[in-house]
């Protein structure tokens, strides 16, 4: 078992309630992870490419996993997903779509664009904690992530 180094989880979601709940659930699940959040697709790309308000050194550590909501203003998850997968530098970051949508079309499109998983946001907090725990266990303990480039 690899030592669990605090992996950065980057969450893109326009809903601040959901961001808050995710933060709480992460805490409750006792995962030692650094959760960063952005509010929409534009901000997400800015963070990943270390532009704009993230141009400062160290302000945007490379995430080990991205939790991506699909429906966001300015630039939604689907567009951001396309751009990230088109960027050679960012392509290898695992992306888990984390959205309210259950639409088959969204699931299909997301996998077609290359997401690693698609999870529909659960309603109850209990379930949210479980999802976070499962995510943490799977992506950070079971799975090998590509080592960070510097």
């Amino acid at each position, binding site marked *: 078992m690899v030592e669990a180094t605090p992996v950065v989880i980057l969450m893109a979601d326009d*809903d601040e309630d959901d961001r808050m709940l995710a933060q709480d659930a992460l805490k409750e699940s006792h995962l030692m992870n650094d959760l960063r959040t952005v509010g929409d697709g534009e901000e997400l790309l800015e963070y990943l490419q270390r532009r704009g308000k993230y141009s400062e050194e160290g302000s945007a550590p490379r995430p080990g996993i991205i939790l991506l909501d699909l*429906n966001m203003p300015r630039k939604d998850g689907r567009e951001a997903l396309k751009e990230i997968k088109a960027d050679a530098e960012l392509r290898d970051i695992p992306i888990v779509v984390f959205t309210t949508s259950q639409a088959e079309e969204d699931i299909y499109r997301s996998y077609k664009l290359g997401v690693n998983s698609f999870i529909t946001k659960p*309603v109850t*907090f*209990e379930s949210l904690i479980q999802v976070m725990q499962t995510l943490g266990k799977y992506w950070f303990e079971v799975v090998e992530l590509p080592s960070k480039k510097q």
Partner: protein
Amino acid sequence: MLIRLQRPSRLALDVDHGVLHEKYLYLGLLALVVLNLTTAVISVASLRNFTQARDQARQSITTNIEFADVYSDLRDAESAQRGYLITGNQDYLTPYASGTSKAQQLMTRLRREFQHTTYNQEISQISTLTDQKIGEMNHTLALRKTQGFSAAVAVVNTNYGLDLMHNIQAKLASMENETNASTAQRDARANRYALAAYGGLAASFALTLGLIYFLRRIFRRLRFQSSQLEIANEELGRSNRELQDFASVASHDLQEPLRKIQAFGDRLATTSHLEPDTQVYLDRMLDAASRMRILIEDLLTYSRVTTKAKPFRRVSLKRIVQEVLSDMEIRIEETGAVVTVGRLPSIEADATQIRQLFQNLISNAVKFHKTDVKPSIKIHSKIDRSDIQDMVAITVEDNGIGFDQKYTDRIFTIFQRLHGRNEYEGTGIGLAVVRKIVERHGGTVVAESEIGKGSRFIVTLPIKQQQ
């Protein structure tokens, strides 16, 4: 939801007029055909009459000439006789003999010719007269030969011979008149027929013009209707798109606040220590929020029957039912339900919607079972062939609790239920969706039931769809 009834559009009224014009067109065409047939018949009759008249005229000219020949032969004989009577010269006897024999030969032939005609009587009369005249002339000649001039002249002076000639002449003239008259009659009749034929042709021409005019009107109306239809279609497409947009908005933006209520309510419920009363209130709130979510989801499902409809393809009903049963395996095992599936054909349909249809019907059949009786569900079909459309009637019947027949309309109405929330779960959308799917496929659904005995749902669907 209030639905505003709209006035029947102009489009509908125009369609009515169009139908009327079509009727006139067919009547007109029928009349044209009849008229043409009649004209043809009359023309043929006229032609026949004309030919007959011509033949008759030709015939009567020849006949008249022949009769005139008879008369002139007799006259020749008469003048030869007169010559002999006056002079006693034998030379006159030759032309006399030739004249009388020619006359007799002609008469014999004419008698034979007209034996079977209406002129038969007249001809025989003329023949008799001719014979009598010849007899008289023979007699006078004989007298001259034997008893001399005065004896012969005495007979001549009786005017017997003269009268005979007059009679013959008169009869010949009257015959000529008769034949001419009958020819004229035939001619007149032929002319009448010809006139009628001309009239028929003119009427036919006028009718054709009238029909062309009607046709133009019909085509103009058709073009107008087709453009109206295009407009209506565009509007329908637009309204459908609006509905889809609304549905997707409802899906996301309506659900979102509800989700928050549930999420935070749930946090409250699990992480706080609440007074029993507060707990109860909180639970009821969460319950209400959850029901609202389900209602919105159901409403979306209902609207998606039209907005997410897929084109019709050939599907195997048997396979779809088997898939649905396999999906419901757990539920079926739980209740110990026994499902028998009979023969089911393949039809043209939207596979996803048909699956939904069977899912709703079968899950109902399982859900509403009698508490102490294992649910027994039978699915079978019957094909109904007809001139208009081949249909298949699929029956899903159960031995469950059944319902009062008077509620058959109610159960197909959206969100209408026959039981309380706490008796059986569900929002009352299953059968409403079934009906909508059935209607989209151009079919019907009826429900038969008896309380305590069970229920039977008969879905009738066309086997082929007009795409």
